[in-house]
């Protein structure tokens, strides 16, 4: 188990190298540079050349990337090329806002989705099940930014109950949280329903009923404990996707998180800041997926025994996966 975790964490190193190479390389190749917005008419050609030299733009890209990587190896993500603020500090100052939004939405979204999914599975084929299915399908087909804008139109402009954007008070939190939670709910409900449905028809449930286990215990103990795996997958995926893809929702609500920071960095060609943000987000994403994998072992003894049994079994599992 420990070996597995270490292996997965070491795996972050090639990821960081490749991600930085891809993102830094691509952004460096992109037309336009960071100094474009600094040049004005009063500057002479020499001033421009000096500015280019200051940002190493007169040297080949590999030189800039090498310099960047050298710092990165020492744990230094560099400074923003525009504000000169440290990338790490910049990211960390915005991160709590993103995390706050994602976690609150997760608790609400999944907290509602799991009971709803179980409810739908228990009443499979009835009108309630169909209504739930329609709800999830519509939720999954809506772009999150559009849902956000609809919420703003309704609650901020029509009813004037809540502020349209910004952050700070609990009122500011409501709309972004509702928007994110609804998006999460759509996928999570669907997943909970289908995994519950699979379990409800399983033989061991028939056995449980046959030996006289009360219906409530059948659902809560026997069915749900086996349905956790797909639910955890969904929760993990949704959380990592929300943290990574927060750019859109944060832009709609003017939420000062890392998603918006990244969007701004990319549009201003701030290569260092953009690259740093993408690397840190990717690390976060990979670590979350690792945590999800480890959680499986805790909820499902069958998987835990695979870790214990060693390499051969795990290989087998990978082959069938």
């Amino acid at each position, binding site marked *: 188990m420990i070996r597995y975790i270490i292996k997965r964490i070491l795996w972050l190193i090639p990821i960081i190298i490749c991600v930085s190479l891809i993102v830094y390389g691509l952004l460096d190749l992109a037309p336009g540079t960071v100094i474009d917005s600094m040049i004005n008419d009063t500057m002479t050609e020499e001033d421009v050349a000096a500015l280019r030299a200051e940002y190493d733009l007169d040297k080949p890209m590999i030189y800039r990337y090498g310099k960047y990587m050298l710092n990165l190896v020492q744990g230094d993500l560099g400074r923003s090329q525009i504000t000169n603020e440290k990338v790490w500090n910049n990211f960390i100052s915005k991160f709590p806002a993103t995390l706050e939004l994602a976690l609150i939405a997760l608790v609400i979204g999944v907290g509602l989705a799991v009971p709803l999914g179980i409810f739908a599975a228990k009443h499979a084929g009835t009108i309630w099940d169909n209504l739930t299915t329609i709800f999830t399908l519509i939720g999954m087909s809506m772009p999150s930014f559009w849902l956000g804008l609809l919420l703003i139109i309704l609650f901020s402009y029509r009813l004037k109950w809540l502020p349209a954007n910004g952050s700070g008070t609990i009122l500011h939190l409501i709309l972004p949280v509702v928007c994110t939670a609804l998006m999460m709910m759509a996928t999570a409900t669907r997943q909970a329903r289908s995994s519950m449905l699979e379990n409800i028809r399983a033989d061991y449930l028939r056995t449980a009923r046959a030996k006289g286990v009360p219906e409530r215990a059948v659902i809560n103990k026997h069915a749900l404990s086996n349905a956790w795996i797909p639910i955890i997958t969904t929760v993990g995926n949704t959380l990592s996707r929300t943290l*990574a893809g927060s750019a859109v929702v944060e832009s709609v609500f003017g939420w000062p998180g890392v998603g918006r920071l990244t969007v701004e960095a990319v549009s201003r060609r701030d290569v260092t800041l953009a690259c740093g943000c993408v690397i840190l987000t990717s690390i976060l994403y990979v670590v979350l997926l690792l945590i999800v994998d480890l959680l499986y072992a805790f909820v499902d003894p069958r998987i835990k025994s695979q870790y214990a049994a060693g390499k051969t079994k795990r290989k087998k599992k990978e082959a069938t996966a």
Partner: protein
Amino acid sequence: MSETAKNTAGDTLVSRQYAKRSRMGEIWHRMKRNKGAVVGMCIIIALILVMIYSALFISYDSITAMDATARLQPPSAAHPFGTDDSGRDLFLRVLYGTKYSIAIGVGAVCVSLIVGLILGAIAGYFGGIVDDIIMRLSDILASIPATLMGMVIVTVLGQSLRNLLFAVGVTAIPAFIRITRSSVLTVRNQEYVEAARSIGMSNLRIIFTQVVPNGLSPIIVTVTSRIGAAIIESAGLSFLGFGVPVPEPEWGALISGGRNFIRTAPYLTLFPGLFIMITVLAFNIMGDGLRDALDPKLKR
């Protein structure tokens, strides 16, 4: 001797009866019984008709021409969806925009399908070090969040329909590699693959005549549901300003443009989003129907 001959004759008779409804026919039959799939298919056909209509009868000039006398008019008989800040009819712009969303959705999935199918099939079929290399590269690509990757690619290549399509396609490649590889792995050790190898078929031929067709159903399902995801993804990129350049009426860009007038003219935001939702919904329910039709085990 005659006994076996009779048996073979009987077998052909039976198989001929089955042949009346081929595998595709059987899937089609099952899909027709799925209400959602039929509704989804009807919507998609309607959208394709809208796309053809707008390509033939709506001129590009009529949707880009500005009319200062008709700015920000609410929906009316003359302008069913109202007009935008330049006095352009939103209804025509939304109809015209259909082709962008469909093109991006289908095109992006084609990009990721082609690359994913080839790499996934190679990885699953050969295994060993080839598999390791392909899967590790795929993992790396998958670990960059899709929206960020899309933003970076569009920034590099410049804003255009083709580049947006490509960017969205690239981000979905790992999903297709994974699904192809796993279906190849399940098929790889079947007897008929062994049989094909024993009669001396080349690896490439086995992959594309035996392995891919037999492992196709999960891939088809992924394709249908990814089209919807690709449309949402591209609309999001357009909304953030990394999409099709400004005068083009792509739905995400329309929402983004309407956002500036959200207080006075919410219809500018409402209608394009509604179209995105309906389109994605159609592809999603068709994907669901297709999955049920391809895998009868799930239905029971």
